């Protein structure tokens, strides 16, 4: 029909779909799920770093870390708002997060054990996130694309801050250097897993990659993004003087890319399915905050209703 044709035309011409436009239900559902999962990742992703706010080693680092965690809250809000343009409600999405019906990036199910982890998260996790997100700035859905532009700008700032944390540690005392190396050891493989299962082979998931690509929601395959990330990160690690924990890492002249070793996809699925070190803790923390705040949100609603009534006394009387 005409509406479907109009939508297909927008996609073909690589133009933006806007909330007012008609769109296939599957496109809407896919986008809502993806934006929600992305928003949830920002919100849950606050926790591993917030863990170091009260213990940051200097006041400057404390301030930077607070600002970063705050930015993540902001990203969550943009993304929930973007999702809301498709007729869902933030509270509905949060309920799905809290009950486990929607996911967040599994990377945040690992603990931050040392200060260097705040650096590694900025460098590797935000670095991988940017790799995933930059293409989304050209996503076919307008509100999502615009949110991503804003998010990406801040994320690349965070990535540089993470790199700088490790830079200083790597040039510090022997213990600081060991701390930086240990963090890289623990975060490297989970960061590679952030791009999702491989495109082919026994570990490939029966995902929606092809459809998402056709819709202009996804621009590169998981493995392509992963390779770009490895190619970007290896020289950074060399600059830092940190050894990435992969003996198979080697420059492949022929491919013009870095080769890397086999990823432990069993661990990936295990953690994704709930048996990660922090899955339960992350959700519990989030749910507790939400439940403990229920009376506050109710009070704000009640107050707003009273104020509205006071502004229109005749309507009440």
């Amino acid at each position, binding site marked *: 029909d005409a509406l479907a044709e109009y939508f297909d035309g927008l996609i073909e011409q690589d133009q933006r779909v806007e909330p007012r436009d008609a769109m296939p239900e599957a496109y809407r559902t896919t986008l809502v799920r993806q934006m929600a999962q992305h928003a949830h990742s920002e919100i849950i992703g606050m926790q591993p770093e917030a863990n170091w*706010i009260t213990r940051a*080693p200097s*006041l400057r680092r404390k301030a930077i870390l*607070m600002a970063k965690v*705050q930015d993540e*809250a902001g990203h969550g809000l943009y993304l929930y708002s973007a999702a809301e343009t498709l007729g869902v409600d933030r509270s509905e999405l949060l309920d799905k997060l809290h009950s486990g019906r929607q996911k967040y990036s599994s990377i945040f199910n690992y603990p931050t054990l040392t200060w260097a982890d705040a650096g590694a998260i900025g460098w590797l996790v935000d670095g991988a996130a940017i790799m995933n997100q930059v293409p989304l700035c050209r996503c076919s859905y307008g509100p999502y694309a615009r949110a991503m532009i804003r998010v990406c700008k801040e994320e690349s700032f965070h990535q540089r801050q993470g790199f700088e944390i490790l830079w200083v540690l790597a040039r*510090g005392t022997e213990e600081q250097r060991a701390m930086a190396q240990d963090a890289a050891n623990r975060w490297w493989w989970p960061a590679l897993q952030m791009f999702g299962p491989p495109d082919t082979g026994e570990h490939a998931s029966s995902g929606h990659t092809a459809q998402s690509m056709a819709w202009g929601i996804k621009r590169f395959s998981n493995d392509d993004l992963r390779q770009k990330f490895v190619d970007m990160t290896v020289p950074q690690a060399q600059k830092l003087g940190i050894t990435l924990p992969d003996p198979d890492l080697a420059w492949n002249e022929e491919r013009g890319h870095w080769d890397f070793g086999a990823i432990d996809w069993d661990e990936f699925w295990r953690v994704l399915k709930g048996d990660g070190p922090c899955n339960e803790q992350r959700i519990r*923390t989030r749910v507790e905050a*939400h439940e403990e705040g229920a009376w506050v949100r109710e009070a704000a609603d009640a107050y707003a209703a009273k104020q509205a009534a006071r502004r229109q006394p005749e309507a009440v009387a």
Partner: protein
Amino acid sequence: MSGQHHVDYLLGLGDDALVYAQRLGEWLTHAPQIEEDMALGNVALDLVGQARALLTHAGEVEGADPVRDEDDLAMLRHEREFRNVQLVEQPRGDFAHEMARLLWFATYQRELYAALLTSTDETLAGVAAKAVKEVDYHRDHATQWVLRLGDGTQESHDRMQAALVAVHPYVAELGEDHDAARWAAEHGVGVLPSSLTDAVNAYISGVLEQATLTLPDAPRWHARGGREGVHSEVMGYLLAEMQHLHRSHPGASW
């Protein structure tokens, strides 16, 4: 001794900001809504900024050899050397408790920094000029929440009233004059805390009335001694958490 009074006065202001930022930082990921994670983070961030400027300046005025910088002062002093009021070191309570504390503290800081705009200590006057706008926002934020909670639901009203009672024993200390403040007031560097009390009380009374809340009766006890480094027993745990990493790597840079 006059130099020491000057230092102590600045440390008092800086420690208030630092220790309260530490408590507010605990809210991140625990706030009742995401907007509030951001807002409390903002307040904490402003306070860390004030603390950094004030502690840096205190170190310069002290003029030790070598000069103690903001991290030396924040991370390497012992509990008895911290000069903050006990209000800011109290553990995080519920959201009403935090808004009661923030209302008092930001209102106090607002009067304080407004008075310090004309400090003869030009660095301090400069800090105040920036900070007065920040704390104006903090006060407004607390005010809006106290109104919402006081005049929201029955539960929020009761919690907000209980929070005022819980915070009340700690507010007198904000207005208590101490040696360093007396010296600072005499020399135009600072201001007597007691001189701010009327304005603070007037503002808060107005808010409470509008919020259908009542100022609690005079408490049976009140906190004292923070400016002389006598804290409540929770302070040691706060410092252990704040300083442990820094102290675990003596001499390291971050």
